[in-house]
Every structure is written in structure tokens, then in C-alpha cells.
């Protein structure tokens, strides 16, 4: 009788084991967050970053031997500090989210890092360039893979002075981002030997620049340096043309986006300059592989200027979680020790403030409706000339 019962139970036990097996083999799901401007004037860059993070997560999950299955939670900070703080609180308070790849807009990042510190959420900044984000406080949770605007502006000043430009007018927006650009560019230009004939602060959503530009026209600078983002960059460039100002337009990484060329029209954007940290992705060893994989996924938007940084930041975060497990404090400590990490954009080492030391800045110029690295452009060979040269 006992054997009969045992025999009857055996198939039941076996099927129960078979049903349970996939659950035992299934990996734990770990959530990481992506925060960037998915709508608004900088959305092209935000969406490129989001897609790149998504690509990193998909590639990581495709590896059969990874201990965890990653899920990307992507959120839109709209490039507005008040919205950014709400989003930061949301992800930081969610216990399932172990880390974040956060922020392109510096003004938003500055407000959000306090939240991340309070909730011990380790984050890796992928696009915001304001130095204060890593250097103003000693928050161990905040890391950054892209360079700061200090390096960008040193190169921006040196580049123009080396090309023979002497007089500059500065237009900057009045957020921390624009004011930071103004500060570092002015310092760098003074050291390089250039002269600033006028500085104008404008609001980040200003529509009409005719008053400022008419004053600039009187001052007759050779270059107009613009420290701000794409939406007002487009307006300033269009209105410069309207008022007949013949100066060379120089921007920062804030305008290095396809949206700038489209908004100002390729004809007006021709010859505009911008500067961004890192070597041109097309030249790096792993660069073409990244672009090929990105194209394969058929995202609606291109990776834009900071996509590679978002990709690298996501991978750093996931590698750290793979190593120490989904514990915020352990992940934070693991990320703090990053030294010579081999990534697509080159070796990454965080300094004592968890800032990646990126020595190289690449200059870009708009040629025929596309951003082209300076050394590859016809401007470098002399076939085309910048304004006033």
C-alpha cells in the first residue's frame, strides 16, 4: 500500500520539480534608472542617451552567464530642475532601483544630487558638464564619466586664439550651466590672450535677442561665443543673420546636436563650432561596433553627442552590480574604486571626487549639414574658411 502511494506521488513530485526548475534557473531582475531630457529642446540628446543605455542593457542581458537580468526604468526630467527633483526622489525612494544613469542638464543635476545623496542611490552622470556637480560637495554617490566644462572651455579659448581671432562677445544663459561656461571661458580666454568686448546674460527660454544682438553689432566682435543649450542657440544664430552680424559663431557641447543644425537650417549652421570631451567615436576601436549595434536596434533617434557616454555609464553600473550584488552601498563603493576600466570611450579612472579624468577635447564644425570633427573637415585643410579668416 505504501509503495502504491509512493508510486502515485512520484510523477506529481517530478512534474513539480520540472515546473520549478525554470524559476530556479531564472535570474533575479535588477532595475536601474535612466534620467534625461526626453522632451523639450534637448530631447534629441536625451533620447540618444536613453537609447544608448537601452542598448547597453539589452547587450548585457544577452550574455548568458550574467548573474542578473537588468531592467531599464527611463524617466524624463524635461531639463527642468523642479521636475528633476521629483524624478530623482521617485527613483531614489524606490527600493528596487539599485543605481541610476542620470542627467544631461546641469541645472537639473545640481538639484538632484542632494536627493541621491540623501537616499544613498549611486548614480553615474552621463552628460552634465558643470564642474560643481562632482566638485562642489563630497557626495560619494555621484560619479561622472564625461568631462567638465573646464576642459571644454580651455580648448575653446585656445582653439580660437590659435586661429587668429582676437575679439569676442559672450552670450550665456543665466542658469548654473550658462554661468559656468561664462566663468570658465572668460578665465581661459584671458589666459590665452583674447579680449572680451561684451558679456550678455539671457534667460534659458528667451525668444527675442534683437536687443542684445544689436548692441553686439555695435561692438563688432570677431566671434560670438555662446554658453547655453540648443533651443536658444538656434534663435541666436537665426537672429544674428537677421541683423546682418558677420561674426563667427562658437558654441559648446550644448549645441552639438542634430537638432541645432535642423533648427537653424543647414545653411545658417554651416561653419558653427562646438567642443566636446572625448575622441571622435568613429575613430575609437570599439566605436564602429557600438554604432553598428545601435543601428541594428533601429531606434528612432541617433545616439547624438552623449549617447556613447550613457552607454559606458550604464555598463559601468551593471558591471559593478554584477560584481557586488544589488546593494546600493556596495555598488557605490565599487564604483568609487574605478581605475583604468576598459570602456568604449577609453580607460576610465575616477579621481578623488569621482570625476573621470578625460584629457582629450575634440573640436567639431558643421559642414554640409553634419557635425564633423575639425581634423577631418575641409576647414582644417583650408578648403573652406571660418568667418573673418
Amino acid at each position, binding site marked *: 500500500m505504501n509503495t502504491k502511494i509512493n508510486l502515485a506521488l512520484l510523477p506529481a513530485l517530478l512534474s513539480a520539480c520540472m515546473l520549478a526548475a525554470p524559476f530556479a534557473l531564472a535570474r533575479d531582475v535588477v532595475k536601474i534608472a535612466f534620467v534625461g531630457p526626453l*522632451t523639450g*529642446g534637448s530631447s534629441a540628446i536625451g533620447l540618444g542617451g536613453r537609447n544608448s543605455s537601452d542598448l547597453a542593457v539589452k547587450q548585457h542581458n544577452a550574455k548568458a552567464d550574467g548573474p542578473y537580468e537588468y531592467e531599464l526604468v527611463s524617466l524624463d526630467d524635461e531639463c527642468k530642475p523642479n521636475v528633476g527633483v521629483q524624478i530623482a526622489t521617485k527613483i531614489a525612494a524606490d527600493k528596487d532601483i539599485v543605481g541610476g544613469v542620470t542627467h544631461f542638464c546641469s541645472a537639473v543635476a545640481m538639484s538632484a544630487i542632494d536627493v541621491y545623496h540623501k537616499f544613498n542611490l549611486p548614480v553615474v552622470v552621463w552628460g552634465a558638464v558643470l564642474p560643481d556637480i562632482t566638485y562642489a560637495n563630497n557626495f560619494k554617490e555621484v560619479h561622472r564619466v564625461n568631462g567638465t566644462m573646464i576642459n571644454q572651455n580651455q580648448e575653446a579659448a585656445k582653439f580660437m586664439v590659435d586661429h587668429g581671432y582676437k575679439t569676442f562677445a559672450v552670450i550665456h544663459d543665466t542658469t548654473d550651466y550658462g554661468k559656468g561656461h561664462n566663468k570658465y571661458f572668460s578665465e581661459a580666454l584671458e589666459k590665452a590672450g583674447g579680449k572680451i568686448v561684451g558679456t550678455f546674460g*539671457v534667460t534659458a*527660454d528667451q525668444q527675442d535677442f534683437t536687443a542684445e544682438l*544689436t548692441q553686439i*553689432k555695435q561692438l563688432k566682435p570677431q566671434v560670438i561665443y555662446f554658453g547655453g543649450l540648443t*533651443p536658444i542657440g538656434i534663435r541666436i544664430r537665426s537672429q544674428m*543673420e537677421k541683423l546682418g552680424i558677420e561674426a563667427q559663431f562658437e558654441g559648446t557641447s550644448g549645441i552639438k546636436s542634430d537638432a541645432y543644425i535642423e533648427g537653424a537650417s543647414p545653411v545658417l549652421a554651416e561653419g558653427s563650432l562646438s567642443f566636446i570631451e572625448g575622441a571622435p567615436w568613429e575613430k575609437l576601436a570599439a566605436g564602429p561596433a557600438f554604432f553598428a549595434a545601435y543601428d541594428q536596434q533601429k531606434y528612432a533617434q541617433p545616439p547624438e553627442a552623449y549617447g556613447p557616454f550613457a552607454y559606458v555609464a550604464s555598463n559601468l553600473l551593471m558591471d559593478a552590480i554584477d560584481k557586488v550584488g544589488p546593494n546600493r552601498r556596495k555598488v557605490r563603493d565599487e564604483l568609487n574604486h574605478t581605475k583604468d576600466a576598459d570602456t568604449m570611450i577609453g580607460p576610465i579612472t575616477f579621481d578623488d571626487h569621482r570625476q573621470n579624468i578625460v584629457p582629450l577635447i575634440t573640436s567639431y564644425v558643421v559642414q554640409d549639414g553634419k557635425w564633423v570633427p575639425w581634423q577631418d573637415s575641409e576647414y582644417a585643410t583650408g578648403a573652406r574658411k571660418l568667418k573673418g579668416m
Partner: protein
Amino acid sequence: MNLEILSQYLVNGLMLGMIYAMVAVGFTLFFGVLDVIKFSHGDVLMIGGFAGLSAYIGAQSMGITNPWLQLLVMLIAALSVTAALGALVARFLILPLRDAPPINLLLITLMLGLVLRECVRLFYPDGSNSKPFPQLLPTNTWHLAGLAIRADSAILLMVGALTIFGVHQLINRSKLGLAIRAVAQDGETARIMGINFERIVLLTFALGSALAATAGMMNGLYYNEINFNVGLLLGVIGFCAAILGGLGNFYGAILGGFLFAALQTIGAVALPHLIPGFQGAYKDVFAFAAVIILLAWKPTGLIAERSSERV
């Protein structure tokens, strides 16, 4: 400061003033005829601009390449879309609710403005980015006696002045205008006199919205750029200008519009030289502060109405 730069400031100020005046006239018309502040007016301006842009893209794809013909198509599209939108808003939102507390109507139109803005941002392809507006007017610069003026600025100024003059003639010389003024003065009596109240209200809203469309097209042609947010600040400034000039008064709206533009230009240009530490970015602060002081001095507006109502 030489004459050329001065003329540039003058043209800038006049252009801004023209656009503000056209928005302010719309506000004044709506308030005059139905005692309603239609806060979505600025966003109707934006819709007019986008309608024009869409018409341009449509015209291009149909093979129309003459810039004047393209302008005509854009203008017709912008005017008809906004006039229809204005009439629809009047018919389904304003008229049924005209006996509600005025603050409710104000809030509803404010929300409508937000809906219009977000609809364009979400549903227009790549709506959250600025769009280049085509350069259709001639761009050569005329020089007379040291003054430099671009052909397109001159044309836009003339068109703006003609439009305002045309609306003025319509309101004061035509039968429709007479009916509008009658309804504005006393709706009940106008009805007794045989005027179709609803029809006149719909026509007034259509007229005011078409005026906004013209301002939207002018804005687009002047700045060669349009984005979903242009209506917000223009609506607020237009409303301020209408109040400043005296709500309900046609000439007051025009005066208010040009006065606000003058304040902004003074704030951006003259004050940084006169007050140390004053930056051009504070021009709106200066202009609005001046408006507050002027309103405190004359609460019913510079051109006083005979009776004032509290909203």
C-alpha cells in the same frame, strides 16, 4: 550711438510692438463683446504659426515654388484654421458658460491654452524642438540717409499697420462692426434691435483669432523660427498691454502694445548703461514693474473706460 544702430532698435521695437498690439486687440475684442478674458489667445497665435508652417510644407510638396504664392497659401491656411478654432471655442466653450462666474471662464480658457500647447508639443512631428520658419520675404537692405532697414522688416511693419487699420475700419465703418459694437455695449438691447447675438459673437471670436494668426505668421517670418512655447509669453504680454491701454478700448490695446515694446527695448538697451549692474536679461522685470506702477496709478487703464467691472 549712430543713426544706423538707432534705426535698428527702432525697427526691433516697432516689430515687437506690432505683434503685441495685434494680440492685445484680440483680447480687447473678446472682452468688449462678451466680458470674457480668453487666455488661450496667445496659443491660438502659435497654432496660426504652425498652420502656416504646415501649409508651407504642403505647398512645397505640391510643387508651388513662387514665394509670394506660398505666402498666400500659408496665410489662407493660418487664417482659416484659427478663425474656425476661435469660432469653435466660442460656440462650445464660451457661449454655453457665459453666465458662469468670470473666474471659471478665465481658468477654463487658461487650461485650453495649455491643452493647445501640449497638443502641438506631443502630436506635431518633433514638436518639442524649434522649427525653422521659411524665409519667404526679400532680404535686401535699404539704406536711406544713414538708416538701414531690411526689406522684410519693412514689409512686415506695413502689413501689421494695414491689418490694424483694416480691423479699425471694419469695427468703425462697416455694418458688421456696428453690430459688434452694439453687442459689446449691451447684448440684450442688441438682440431686441434684431441683431443675431450668437452669430456676432462667433464672428468676433473668428475675427480676433484670425488677427492672432496674422500675428503668428508675422512672428514666424520675422524670427524665422517657431516653437510650441511662443504663445505663452506673447499671451501674457498681450493681455498686460490690453489692460494697460484700457480693456475694451481698441486704441488702448494698440497703445498698450507699443508701450510695452518700448519699455522692453529701454530695459534692454538704455538701462544697462544708466544703472550699473543692470543686465539686459532683466528687461522683462523692468517692463512688468513699470506696468504695475502705471496700473497702480491708473487702474482702469491709460484710456479710461466709462465704467469698470471687477473680474
